[in-house]
Protein backbone atom coordinates (compact mmCIF):
# COMPACT_ATOMS: atom_id res chain seq x y z
CA UNK A 1 0.00 0.00 0.00
CA UNK A 2 1.44 3.36 -0.97
CA UNK A 3 1.82 6.09 1.58
CA UNK A 4 -0.35 9.19 1.21
CA UNK A 5 1.60 12.16 -0.14
CA UNK A 6 2.99 14.73 2.20
CA UNK A 7 1.50 18.16 1.66
CA UNK A 8 2.71 21.63 2.55
CA UNK A 9 1.00 24.91 1.75
CA UNK A 10 3.39 27.66 0.68
CA UNK A 11 1.89 31.14 0.55
CA UNK A 12 3.89 33.72 -1.41
CA UNK A 13 2.31 37.04 -2.31
CA UNK A 14 -0.88 36.06 -0.49
CA UNK A 15 -1.45 33.17 -2.90
CA UNK A 16 -1.47 29.79 -1.10
CA UNK A 17 -0.25 26.87 -3.19
CA UNK A 18 -0.24 23.30 -1.92
CA UNK A 19 2.85 21.26 -2.78
CA UNK A 20 2.57 17.50 -2.44
CA UNK A 21 5.12 14.74 -2.80
CA UNK A 22 5.88 11.21 -1.70
CA UNK A 23 9.58 11.98 -1.53
CA UNK A 24 10.49 12.54 2.12
CA UNK A 25 13.84 14.24 1.54
CA UNK A 26 12.34 16.62 -1.01
CA UNK A 27 9.51 17.36 1.39
CA UNK A 28 11.99 18.18 4.15
CA UNK A 29 13.91 20.35 1.72
CA UNK A 30 10.87 22.43 0.77
CA UNK A 31 9.81 22.81 4.42
CA UNK A 32 13.22 24.24 5.20
CA UNK A 33 13.47 26.41 2.11
CA UNK A 34 10.06 28.04 2.52
CA UNK A 35 9.98 28.00 6.30
CA UNK A 36 8.84 31.60 6.60
CA UNK A 37 6.17 31.16 3.94
CA UNK A 38 4.36 28.02 5.15
CA UNK A 39 0.69 28.68 5.60
CA UNK A 40 -2.44 27.19 7.11
CA UNK A 41 -4.59 28.94 4.48
CA UNK A 42 -6.81 26.95 2.19
CA UNK A 43 -4.77 26.46 -1.02
CA UNK A 44 -5.96 28.21 -4.16
CA UNK A 45 -3.67 26.10 -6.33
CA UNK A 46 -2.04 22.70 -6.12
CA UNK A 47 1.13 21.14 -7.50
CA UNK A 48 2.06 17.46 -7.28
CA UNK A 49 5.76 16.69 -7.42
CA UNK A 50 7.25 13.51 -8.77
CA UNK A 51 10.95 13.34 -8.02
CA UNK A 52 12.75 11.63 -10.87
CA UNK A 53 16.53 11.75 -10.50
CA UNK A 54 19.00 13.30 -8.17
CA UNK A 55 20.97 16.16 -9.64
CA UNK A 56 21.56 19.83 -9.89
CA UNK A 57 19.67 22.64 -11.53
CA UNK A 58 20.10 23.17 -15.23
CA UNK A 59 21.58 26.19 -17.02
CA UNK A 60 19.33 25.61 -20.01
CA UNK A 61 16.75 28.22 -20.91
CA UNK A 62 13.31 27.44 -19.67
CA UNK A 63 10.56 26.90 -22.23
CA UNK A 64 7.00 27.81 -21.32
CA UNK A 65 4.33 27.20 -23.93
CA UNK A 66 0.67 26.51 -24.30
CA UNK A 67 -0.65 23.12 -25.31
CA UNK A 68 -4.41 23.42 -25.59
CA UNK A 69 -5.65 24.73 -22.28
CA UNK A 70 -2.45 23.74 -20.45
CA UNK A 71 0.84 25.46 -19.88
CA UNK A 72 3.92 23.29 -20.32
CA UNK A 73 7.05 24.28 -18.42
CA UNK A 74 10.26 22.59 -19.49
CA UNK A 75 13.92 22.80 -18.62
CA UNK A 76 16.65 20.18 -18.39
CA UNK A 77 15.98 19.54 -14.72
CA UNK A 78 12.17 19.72 -14.70
CA UNK A 79 9.02 19.43 -16.73
CA UNK A 80 5.60 20.51 -15.57
CA UNK A 81 2.07 20.70 -16.82
CA UNK A 82 -0.25 23.37 -15.44
CA UNK A 83 -3.98 23.65 -15.96
CA UNK A 84 -5.09 27.21 -15.20
CA UNK A 85 -8.76 26.18 -15.38
CA UNK A 86 -8.50 23.82 -12.41
CA UNK A 87 -5.53 25.50 -10.73
CA UNK A 88 -3.69 22.20 -10.59
CA UNK A 89 -0.49 20.89 -12.04
CA UNK A 90 2.10 18.15 -11.94
CA UNK A 91 5.86 18.53 -11.85
CA UNK A 92 8.65 16.06 -12.55
CA UNK A 93 11.94 17.39 -11.31
CA UNK A 94 15.22 16.79 -9.58
CA UNK A 95 15.16 17.00 -5.80
CA UNK A 96 17.04 20.26 -5.73
CA UNK A 97 15.83 23.62 -4.43
CA UNK A 98 16.75 25.65 -7.50
CA UNK A 99 14.44 23.64 -9.74
CA UNK A 100 11.68 24.04 -7.17
CA UNK A 101 12.26 27.81 -7.00
CA UNK A 102 12.13 28.03 -10.80
CA UNK A 103 8.87 26.11 -11.05
CA UNK A 104 7.26 28.26 -8.37
CA UNK A 105 8.47 31.49 -9.97
CA UNK A 106 7.04 30.49 -13.34
CA UNK A 107 3.76 29.39 -11.77
CA UNK A 108 3.41 32.66 -9.86
CA UNK A 109 4.32 34.70 -12.95
CA UNK A 110 1.49 32.99 -14.86
CA UNK A 111 -1.01 33.45 -12.02
CA UNK A 112 0.00 37.08 -11.52
CA UNK A 113 -0.28 37.90 -15.21
CA UNK A 114 -3.97 36.97 -15.03
CA UNK A 115 -4.43 39.08 -11.89
CA UNK A 116 -2.73 42.26 -13.00
CA UNK A 117 0.52 41.67 -11.12
CA UNK A 118 4.06 40.59 -11.95
CA UNK A 119 7.38 39.36 -10.68
CA UNK A 120 10.15 41.88 -11.18
CA UNK A 121 13.93 41.61 -11.22
CA UNK A 122 14.23 43.97 -8.28
CA UNK A 123 15.17 44.22 -4.66
CA UNK A 124 12.40 45.54 -2.46
CA UNK A 125 12.10 46.69 1.11
CA UNK A 126 9.70 48.41 3.48
CA UNK A 127 10.83 51.74 4.93
CA UNK A 128 8.56 53.75 7.24
CA UNK A 129 5.62 51.53 6.28
CA UNK A 130 6.00 51.99 2.52
CA UNK A 131 7.52 49.61 0.02
CA UNK A 132 10.23 50.64 -2.45
CA UNK A 133 11.47 48.62 -5.39
CA UNK A 134 15.01 48.80 -6.76
CA UNK A 135 15.36 47.33 -10.21
CA UNK A 136 18.14 47.09 -12.73
CA UNK A 137 20.43 44.83 -14.66
CA UNK A 138 22.77 42.47 -12.88
CA UNK A 139 25.42 44.57 -11.14
CA UNK A 140 23.28 47.71 -11.02
CA UNK A 141 23.13 47.56 -7.23
CA UNK A 142 20.07 45.59 -6.11
CA UNK A 143 21.93 43.58 -3.49
CA UNK A 144 24.05 46.62 -2.58
CA UNK A 145 20.92 48.59 -1.77
CA UNK A 146 19.71 45.86 0.57
CA UNK A 147 23.12 45.59 2.25
CA UNK A 148 23.15 49.36 2.84
CA UNK A 149 19.65 49.40 4.32
CA UNK A 150 19.34 50.77 7.87
CA UNK A 151 18.26 48.44 10.66
CA UNK A 152 14.66 49.66 10.63
CA UNK A 153 14.17 48.68 6.98
CA UNK A 154 12.42 45.34 6.31
CA UNK A 155 13.87 43.34 3.44
CA UNK A 156 11.28 41.82 1.08
CA UNK A 157 13.82 40.39 -1.38
CA UNK A 158 17.17 41.23 -2.88
CA UNK A 159 16.35 39.59 -6.21
CA UNK A 160 12.72 38.93 -7.25
CA UNK A 161 10.02 41.36 -6.20
CA UNK A 162 6.40 40.32 -6.01
CA UNK A 163 3.91 42.96 -7.13
CA UNK A 164 0.14 42.75 -7.01
CA UNK A 165 -2.59 45.32 -7.51
CA UNK A 166 -4.31 46.17 -4.28
CA UNK A 167 -7.53 44.21 -4.52
CA UNK A 168 -8.94 45.34 -1.22
CA UNK A 169 -11.21 47.60 -3.20
CA UNK A 170 -11.66 45.89 -6.57
CA UNK A 171 -12.52 48.17 -9.48
CA UNK A 172 -12.17 51.12 -7.17
CA UNK A 173 -11.24 54.37 -8.89
CA UNK A 174 -8.45 55.72 -6.73
CA UNK A 175 -8.97 59.38 -5.99
CA UNK A 176 -5.47 59.46 -4.52
CA UNK A 177 -3.62 58.23 -7.57
CA UNK A 178 -0.54 56.27 -6.67
CA UNK A 179 -1.45 55.60 -3.09
CA UNK A 180 -1.91 51.94 -2.31
CA UNK A 181 -2.60 51.02 -5.91
CA UNK A 182 -0.02 48.21 -5.84
CA UNK A 183 1.55 46.20 -3.04
CA UNK A 184 4.93 44.52 -2.80
CA UNK A 185 5.22 41.21 -0.96
CA UNK A 186 8.22 39.46 0.51
CA UNK A 187 9.52 36.41 -1.33
CA UNK A 188 11.77 33.50 -0.44
CA UNK A 189 13.63 33.98 -3.74
CA UNK A 190 17.07 35.25 -2.74
CA UNK A 191 19.93 36.53 -4.84
CA UNK A 192 23.51 37.22 -3.81
CA UNK A 193 22.38 38.02 -0.29
CA UNK A 194 21.32 34.35 0.09
CA UNK A 195 18.63 35.38 2.55
CA UNK A 196 14.87 35.01 2.14
CA UNK A 197 12.76 38.13 2.45
CA UNK A 198 10.30 38.77 5.25
CA UNK A 199 6.81 37.41 4.68
CA UNK A 200 4.95 40.73 4.77
CA UNK A 201 3.75 43.41 2.38
CA UNK A 202 3.23 47.15 2.00
CA UNK A 203 1.87 49.62 -0.51
CA UNK A 204 4.45 50.57 -3.12
CA UNK A 205 5.56 54.20 -2.85
CA UNK A 206 8.15 54.10 -5.62
CA UNK A 207 10.05 52.06 -8.17
CA UNK A 208 13.66 53.04 -8.77
CA UNK A 209 15.79 51.90 -11.68
CA UNK A 210 19.31 51.80 -10.29
CA UNK A 211 22.48 53.25 -11.74
CA UNK A 212 25.60 53.81 -9.70
CA UNK A 213 27.17 57.26 -9.90
CA UNK A 214 29.03 59.94 -7.96
CA UNK A 215 26.00 61.31 -6.13
CA UNK A 216 22.49 60.39 -5.02
CA UNK A 217 19.67 61.74 -7.15
CA UNK A 218 16.26 60.60 -8.37
CA UNK A 219 15.25 61.71 -11.89
CA UNK A 220 11.89 61.54 -13.61
CA UNK A 221 11.44 59.13 -16.50
CA UNK A 222 8.98 59.59 -19.33
CA UNK A 223 6.04 57.21 -19.18
CA UNK A 224 7.28 55.36 -22.25
CA UNK A 225 10.79 54.97 -20.85
CA UNK A 226 9.38 53.80 -17.52
CA UNK A 227 7.25 51.18 -19.27
CA UNK A 228 10.18 50.12 -21.45
CA UNK A 229 12.41 49.59 -18.40
CA UNK A 230 9.64 47.88 -16.47
CA UNK A 231 8.89 45.43 -19.28
CA UNK A 232 12.60 44.68 -19.63
CA UNK A 233 12.74 43.60 -15.99
CA UNK A 234 9.43 41.78 -15.55
CA UNK A 235 9.91 38.02 -15.41
CA UNK A 236 7.91 36.35 -18.10
CA UNK A 237 8.80 33.12 -19.71
CA UNK A 238 6.20 32.49 -22.37
CA UNK A 239 6.34 33.89 -25.88
CA UNK A 240 2.60 34.19 -25.78
CA UNK A 241 0.93 37.25 -27.33
CA UNK A 242 -2.01 37.12 -24.93
CA UNK A 243 0.30 37.07 -21.94
CA UNK A 244 2.45 39.92 -23.28
CA UNK A 245 -0.70 41.94 -23.95
CA UNK A 246 -1.77 41.53 -20.32
CA UNK A 247 1.68 42.39 -18.98
CA UNK A 248 1.98 45.48 -21.14
CA UNK A 249 -1.44 46.65 -19.92
CA UNK A 250 -0.35 46.02 -16.34
CA UNK A 251 2.96 47.83 -16.85
CA UNK A 252 1.15 50.87 -18.26
CA UNK A 253 -1.28 50.89 -15.35
CA UNK A 254 1.56 50.56 -12.84
CA UNK A 255 3.49 53.44 -14.39
CA UNK A 256 0.37 55.60 -14.37
CA UNK A 257 -0.21 54.96 -10.65
CA UNK A 258 3.20 54.50 -9.06
CA UNK A 259 6.11 56.99 -9.16
CA UNK A 260 8.96 55.55 -11.23
CA UNK A 261 12.40 57.16 -11.18
CA UNK A 262 15.96 56.60 -12.25
CA UNK A 263 17.96 56.49 -9.02
CA UNK A 264 21.61 57.34 -9.46
CA UNK A 265 23.35 56.43 -6.25
CA UNK A 266 26.72 56.44 -4.62
CA UNK A 267 27.00 53.15 -2.76
CA UNK A 268 26.98 54.24 0.83
CA UNK A 269 24.25 54.40 3.46
CA UNK A 270 23.22 57.98 2.56
CA UNK A 271 21.25 56.71 -0.42
CA UNK A 272 18.61 55.53 2.03
CA UNK A 273 18.10 59.15 3.13
CA UNK A 274 17.16 59.86 -0.48
CA UNK A 275 14.70 56.95 -0.42
CA UNK A 276 13.27 57.83 2.99
CA UNK A 277 12.56 61.40 1.92
CA UNK A 278 11.27 60.52 -1.54
CA UNK A 279 7.88 62.17 -1.94
CA UNK A 280 6.92 60.71 -5.29
CA UNK A 281 5.25 63.88 -6.50
CA UNK A 282 4.53 64.02 -10.16
CA UNK A 283 1.97 65.78 -12.22
CA UNK A 284 -1.49 64.92 -10.97
CA UNK A 285 -0.11 62.90 -8.09
CA UNK A 286 -0.08 63.98 -4.48
CA UNK A 287 2.97 63.67 -2.27
CA UNK A 288 3.30 60.55 -0.15
CA UNK A 289 4.56 62.49 2.87
Amino acid at each position, binding site marked *: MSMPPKIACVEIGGIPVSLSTNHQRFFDLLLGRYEGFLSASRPEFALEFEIIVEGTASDEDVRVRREGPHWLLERGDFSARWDPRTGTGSVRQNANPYSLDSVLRILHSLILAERGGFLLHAASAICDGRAYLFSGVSGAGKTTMTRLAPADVTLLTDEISYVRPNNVRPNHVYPEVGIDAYRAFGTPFAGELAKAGENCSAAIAGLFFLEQGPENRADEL*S*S*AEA*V*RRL*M*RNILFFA*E*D*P*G*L*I*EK*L*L*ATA*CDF*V*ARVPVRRLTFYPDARVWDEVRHFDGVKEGMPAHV
Partner: protein
Amino acid sequence: MSETYIARSSAIAARMLAGEMMVMNSADSTFFTLNEVATAIWQAADGHTPLREIVRERICGEFEIDPEQAQTDAEQFVAELSSHGILLVSDHPLPPEAPR
Protein backbone atom coordinates in the same frame (compact mmCIF):
# COMPACT_ATOMS: atom_id res chain seq x y z
CA MET B 1 2.49 51.20 -59.88
CA SER B 2 2.12 48.41 -57.36
CA GLU B 3 0.58 49.22 -54.01
CA THR B 4 1.89 48.37 -50.55
CA TYR B 5 -0.51 46.96 -47.97
CA ILE B 6 0.29 46.79 -44.27
CA ALA B 7 -1.30 44.91 -41.38
CA ARG B 8 -0.51 44.65 -37.69
CA SER B 9 0.97 41.33 -36.67
CA SER B 10 -1.07 39.28 -34.20
CA ALA B 11 2.17 38.54 -32.30
CA ILE B 12 2.39 42.01 -30.85
CA ALA B 13 0.97 43.90 -27.92
CA ALA B 14 0.26 47.61 -28.17
CA ARG B 15 -0.84 50.20 -25.66
CA MET B 16 -1.34 53.95 -25.63
CA LEU B 17 0.02 55.76 -22.57
CA ALA B 18 0.30 59.50 -22.06
CA GLY B 19 -0.24 60.08 -25.77
CA GLU B 20 2.45 57.63 -26.85
CA MET B 21 1.82 54.29 -28.52
CA MET B 22 3.99 51.48 -27.20
CA VAL B 23 4.38 48.36 -29.28
CA MET B 24 6.02 45.13 -28.17
CA ASN B 25 6.74 41.97 -30.11
CA SER B 26 6.02 38.90 -28.00
CA ALA B 27 8.46 36.76 -29.98
CA ASP B 28 11.64 38.73 -29.30
CA SER B 29 10.50 41.35 -26.76
CA THR B 30 11.53 44.26 -29.00
CA PHE B 31 9.84 47.41 -27.80
CA PHE B 32 9.02 50.54 -29.78
CA THR B 33 7.53 53.87 -28.88
CA LEU B 34 5.74 55.45 -31.82
CA ASN B 35 5.44 59.15 -32.46
CA GLU B 36 2.18 60.75 -33.50
CA VAL B 37 2.64 60.19 -37.23
CA ALA B 38 3.85 56.61 -36.79
CA THR B 39 0.89 55.94 -34.49
CA ALA B 40 -1.51 57.16 -37.19
CA ILE B 41 0.07 54.76 -39.69
CA TRP B 42 0.00 51.95 -37.15
CA GLN B 43 -3.66 52.48 -36.38
CA ALA B 44 -4.56 52.57 -40.07
CA ALA B 45 -2.68 49.34 -40.86
CA ASP B 46 -5.81 47.30 -41.56
CA GLY B 47 -4.38 45.13 -44.34
CA HIS B 48 -6.56 46.47 -47.11
CA THR B 49 -5.92 50.22 -47.25
CA PRO B 50 -2.88 50.93 -49.46
CA LEU B 51 0.00 52.67 -47.70
CA ARG B 52 -0.13 55.48 -50.25
CA GLU B 53 -3.78 56.15 -49.30
CA ILE B 54 -2.95 56.00 -45.58
CA VAL B 55 -0.24 58.60 -46.07
CA ARG B 56 -2.50 60.81 -48.15
CA GLU B 57 -5.58 60.58 -45.93
CA ARG B 58 -4.19 60.04 -42.44
CA ILE B 59 -0.84 61.79 -42.56
CA CYS B 60 -0.90 64.60 -45.10
CA GLY B 61 -4.55 65.23 -44.25
CA GLU B 62 -3.87 65.70 -40.55
CA PHE B 63 -0.25 66.76 -40.22
CA GLU B 64 1.55 69.53 -42.05
CA ILE B 65 4.02 67.31 -43.87
CA ASP B 66 5.30 67.44 -47.44
CA PRO B 67 3.60 64.52 -49.27
CA GLU B 68 6.79 63.17 -50.81
CA GLN B 69 8.64 63.37 -47.53
CA ALA B 70 5.69 61.77 -45.74
CA GLN B 71 5.68 58.85 -48.20
CA THR B 72 9.44 58.33 -47.81
CA ASP B 73 9.24 58.47 -44.01
CA ALA B 74 6.26 56.09 -43.99
CA GLU B 75 8.10 53.57 -46.16
CA GLN B 76 11.12 53.68 -43.83
CA PHE B 77 8.90 53.27 -40.78
CA VAL B 78 7.07 50.33 -42.36
CA ALA B 79 10.35 48.68 -43.37
CA GLU B 80 11.73 48.96 -39.83
CA LEU B 81 8.65 47.59 -38.09
CA SER B 82 8.37 44.89 -40.74
CA SER B 83 11.95 43.78 -40.09
CA HIS B 84 10.96 43.17 -36.46
CA GLY B 85 7.82 41.27 -37.41
CA ILE B 86 5.55 43.96 -36.01
CA LEU B 87 3.96 44.95 -39.31
CA LEU B 88 3.13 42.59 -42.15
CA VAL B 89 3.77 43.99 -45.63
CA SER B 90 2.48 42.76 -48.96
CA ASP B 91 1.78 43.97 -52.50
CA HIS B 92 -1.75 42.63 -52.21
CA PRO B 93 -4.41 43.08 -49.51
CA LEU B 94 -3.80 41.13 -46.31
CA PRO B 95 -6.37 39.37 -44.13
CA PRO B 96 -7.42 41.23 -41.01
CA GLU B 97 -5.40 40.80 -37.83
CA ALA B 98 -5.83 37.25 -36.57
CA PRO B 99 -7.91 37.02 -33.40
CA ARG B 100 -6.04 35.96 -30.28
